[in-house]
């Protein structure tokens, strides 16, 4: 994943108040999932009032290799906010979730997060805690499973339509 342009303001905030020490060049910084809502609140107060996107990714368990240490199955949720000015700065960060863990919903802060979070819940199966209406958005209501998980077979049959 190509990282967003360097954001000094965000990095200072994360280093000072959120105990983040690593700022990889090719990915947004990792923030503890329990402080997700707190970070978003602070950024909104700093002028990041535009909710750009939320993207959840599923990772299968990985053995230790050159690429990195051993990883259990987990999810990463990346969120991006922007200052709604010309050339406004972008603030993006990631949260890591183990299987079964949820992440605080940002619907209370940004109304636009509603459907975006529903979409990620629908396709990847990440739970957004305190979301007012966490239903499927794209797949039919009687769909089984979350199709964008890495272990979902693409040719899964769906009786009676395919």
């Amino acid at each position, binding site marked *: 994943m190509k990282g967003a342009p360097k954001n000094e303001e965000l990095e200072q905030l994360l280093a000072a108040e959120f105990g983040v020490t690593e700022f990889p060049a090719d990915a947004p910084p990792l923030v503890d999932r329990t402080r997700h809502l707190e970070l978003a609140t602070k950024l909104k107060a700093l002028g990041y009032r535009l909710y750009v996107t939320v993207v959840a990714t599923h990772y299968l368990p990985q053995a230790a290799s050159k690429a990195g240490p051993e990883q259990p199955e987990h999810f990463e949720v990346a969120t991006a906010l922007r200052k709604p000015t010309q050339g406004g700065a972008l603030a993006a960060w990631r949260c890591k979730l183990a299987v079964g863990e949820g992440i605080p919903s940002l619907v209370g802060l940004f109304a636009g997060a509603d459907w975006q979070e529903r979409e990620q819940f629908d396709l990847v199966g990440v739970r957004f805690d305190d979301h007012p209406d966490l239903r499927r958005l794209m797949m039919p209501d009687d769909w089984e499973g979350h199709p964008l998980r890495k272990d979902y077979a693409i040719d899964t049959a769906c009786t009676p*339509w395919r």
Partner: protein
Amino acid sequence: MAVKEDDRAFTHPLYDFMARMPGLDVATTSVDKLLTWGASNALWIFPMATSCCGIEFMAAAASRVDLDRMGTIVRGTPRQSDVMVVAGTITVKMAPRVKKLWDQMPEPKWCLAMGSCAISGDFYRDIYSVVPGIDTFLPVDVYVPGCPPNPEELMHGLLRLQEKIRAFRAGKPRGAAERPPTPEHMRRPSLPRLDDPTRPDELSLLQTQSAGSLGHGTEMNLIELRRSKAGEALAAKLAALRAPAEPAEKKE
């Protein structure tokens, strides 16, 4: 020449009246011709346009090709239409809606599959949410290939449909019986087509129920149904049908 009572492919009150009157045989034949002319030259279309084929369909309906010349009027409601033109990819979520709209169309009705996606799902056919061809749940009369087909090709498809309607009214049985057998190296749809003799009856029943319960608060829970004994039996039947045409690692 009189039309024999047994050969009739349709009924109409006027026709019945004339058939009963002595000496009106000639008029009966004329009425038959008139009705056939009307049926084949007033094809009101219900556009089931879901993607880029829909744009091409609009081009066909606009002034350059002008489908109106042959009496086709595009209607926004299935209840006043004769032909459903399915133009685009049909997804698993859309399929019960399409089926429901089709069921609302009055007989006699015709179905035209426009473009590769409607015909077979094209390169989306293996995706978890795409129906591999609408002939797995709709009786398609004319296939118009292309990605997307030209407006001229759609026009040609409709002219072929007119031929088919004339043949049907002359007593030829309707149906896709002339389809050549699928070559061995080509994959069949993952579901049997409507005209497939191996197609289980439960499949059609399930599709109709799934479409029929849309939006009435009596949503049939397909998850429960799939997990029931009948649902599992149907899934096993379908898997067995699928097995010979699919590579071994595709088995579920």
